[in-house]
C-alpha cells in the first residue's frame, strides 16, 4: 500500500503535494465523514505509527460556510495536539448548520514510538475545497502548514 494513502474504501484519505508543506484530503459519504478522514490524513503527516484511542476530547467550532468550517475543524485539532501534546487517530464529526461538534480519540505523544516527522502549525485556505462529486461522494481538502 502506498504509505501516504489509505485503503480505497468509500471513506478514505490522501496527501497531496504542496511546495514546502503538505495537502490533506478526505472523502466520505457526507461532509462530516470527509472531515473525519481529512483529520486522519493530518495525523498521518506526523506519524506512520498506530495512535491508540486512550483519551477522548470534545471540540466545537463554527464558521459561515462549509469550507471555512473545515479549516476551523483542522485548526481545532491542531490546537488540542499542541496544548495537550497528544496525537489523535480516530475522529467523529457532527455538523449542524454552521456548527461542528467533534470528538477526538488519541494518546500522549510517545516520541520513540510515534517518531513524529513534523508538526502541523495551521490549516490554510490554500487549495481549500469542500465539494460533492456527481456520484454523491464528498471531499474536503486544504494545505496544512507544517
Amino acid at each position: 500500500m502506498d504509505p501516504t494513502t489509505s485503503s480505497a474504501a468509500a471513506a478514505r484519505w490522501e496527501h497531496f503535494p504542496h511546495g514546502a508543506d503538505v495537502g490533506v484530503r478526505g472523502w466520505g459519504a457526507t461532509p462530516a465523514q470527509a472531515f473525519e478522514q481529512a483529520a486522519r490524513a493530518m495525523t498521518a503527516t506526523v506519524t506512520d505509527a498506530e495512535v491508540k484511542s486512550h483519551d477522548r476530547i470534545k471540540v466545537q467550532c463554527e464558521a459561515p460556510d462549509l469550507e471555512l468550517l473545515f479549516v476551523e475543524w483542522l485548526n481545532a485539532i491542531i490546537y488540542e495536539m499542541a496544548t495537550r501534546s497528544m496525537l489523535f487517530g480516530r475522529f467523529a464529526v457532527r455538523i449542524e448548520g454552521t456548527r461542528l461538534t467533534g470528538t477526538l480519540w488519541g494518546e500522549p505523544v510517545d516520541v520513540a514510538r510515534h517518531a513524529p516527522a513534523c508538526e502541523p502549525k495551521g490549516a490554510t485556505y490554500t487549495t481549500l475545497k469542500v465539494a460533492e462529486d456527481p456520484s454523491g461522494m464528498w471531499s474536503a481538502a486544504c494545505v496544512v502548514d507544517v
Partner: protein
Amino acid sequence: MDLARLTQVDPTTWRIEPHGEMRVLAIVYADEALVRDIDDKVYEQAVNVAMLPGIVKASYAMPDAHWGYGFPIGGVAAFDPSEGGVVSAGGVGFDISCGVRTMLTGLSAADILPVQRALAESLYEEIPAGVGSKGSITLDAAEMDAMLAGGALWAVEQGWGEMRDLERIEEGGKMSGARPEYVSERAKERQRREMGTLGSGNHYLEVQVVEEIYDRAVAKTFGLAEDAVVVTIHCGSRGLGHQIGTEFLKEMVITAAEAGIALPDRELACAPIHSEVGERYLGAMRGAINCALANREILGHYARRVFRHYFPQCDLRLLYDVSHNTCKVERHAIDGEKRDLFVHRKGATRAFGPGHASLPQALRDAGQPVLIGGSMGTGSHILVGRETSEQKAFSSACHGAGRALSRHAALKQWSGRAIVDELASKGIIIRCPSMRGVAEEAPGAYKDVGAVVEAAEHAGLARRVARVRPLICVKG
C-alpha cells in the same frame, strides 16, 4: 515559470508588467535557470500581491521564491498607510518572525572533531526538538505578557542570555509596539510550555565550519575565517505565532470584504493599516516577533551551556540574529522622498547596507549580516547587505535554498536512514527523532543554495561573505 510572460531587464532581473488589477509591477530576482524552475504559482502570487491597496513600487520575488500562502515565500512588498495601505496576516505567514541566528565559537574544526559525536548527543539532549519534546520553561500569565513585550531583552533579564547579544539582534532584541493584550488566550496557551523549544520541520540547530570565504575584509569584521566553527539556529515563534496567524487570517478574510478590499486569494487576507483590526494585528504580531527573539535567545543560551561543558573557555558570541517572516515599519526613500512604509518580508531577510543606523558600531561600516540557511547536506551562507540593496527591494534578500521537491515527493525518493548514513560518511552527524522527518528534509529536496545566493549577489541584493558546512545538525 514561463519566461515568455516575463520581461528580462538583466541576467538576474525579470519584470512582470502591470496588467489586470495590478497596481504596480512585479519583479523577480533570479538567474534564468532559477526562474525556469520557479513554480508558476509564484507568478500568480506575485501578481496578486501587486493588486493590494497602497502597495509601493513593486511586488518582489527573491531568488529562492516558491509557492506560499497568498504571498509567495520569498516575497517582499511595502505598503503606505497614507495611501490606504494594508497589513496582511498572510503576508507575514504563520511562523511569525521565524529566523536565523549565528554565533561565533572561537573554535576550529580540529577542536570539535574529537568530541563531535558526544557534542551532538548533548545538544540533542539539551535542545528540545520536535513534536512531543518538552521545554523546561513554563510561563504564567504575567510572565507571558512580559515576554511578549520584552523579547530577547526579557530572556536576558531572566538569565537566559547575555546583554551584549541585544545590539546584534534586529530591533535591539525588543520589538516596540507589541500589545500582549491583543494576543488571544488560545495563542498564549499554545506557548505556555514552548519557550526554548526548536520546533520541527525545517527548523534546526547546527554546528558549522567555515569552508570558503568570499569577502575577506567583511569576513574579518564578522569574526569569520576558514575553519572557524559557528553555531546556527533556525526557528521562530512556535505555537503562539501560528495561532495568531491562524486567527487573524480568518478575521481578515471577513473584515477585508467589509472594508471593500477585493481579495484575489483568501490567503491574502489583509486589513487597512489604520483600522481597528489592522492595529490589533500589528500589536499581536509584534508580540509574536518578541516571542521568536526570546526563543532564539534562550536556545542560544542552551547551546552556550553545552559548549561550556566541553570547552570551558568558550563563550559563544552572537554574530547576528535575523527574522525572515515579518512586517516592519521602516523609512525608505521613494523618488527622493522619505516615507514610512510597512514592509512585509515573507521568507525574505532584511539586508541593510553599510552605514545603516540600526547596525551596531562594529558592523556599521560593513553592513548587516544576512544569514541564509541551506539544507543539512549542502551547507549555508553568510551574506552582507550592500549599498544597492535599498534600491532593489527595500533592503531585502533571499532567506534560504527554497524547496525543489515537496515533502511528499521527497518521501518517495529517499530513506531517512540512508541519508543519515550518507551524511555521516561526509562527516556530518544528524540527530532527529524521526527518520521520516530526515527524508522529508533531504538535501536533494532543496534547490541549490549556491545558485540562490549567487543570484542574490548578482542582482545586488546582498554580497556573499562565507559558506559554511554542517558538522552537527539537530533537527526537530
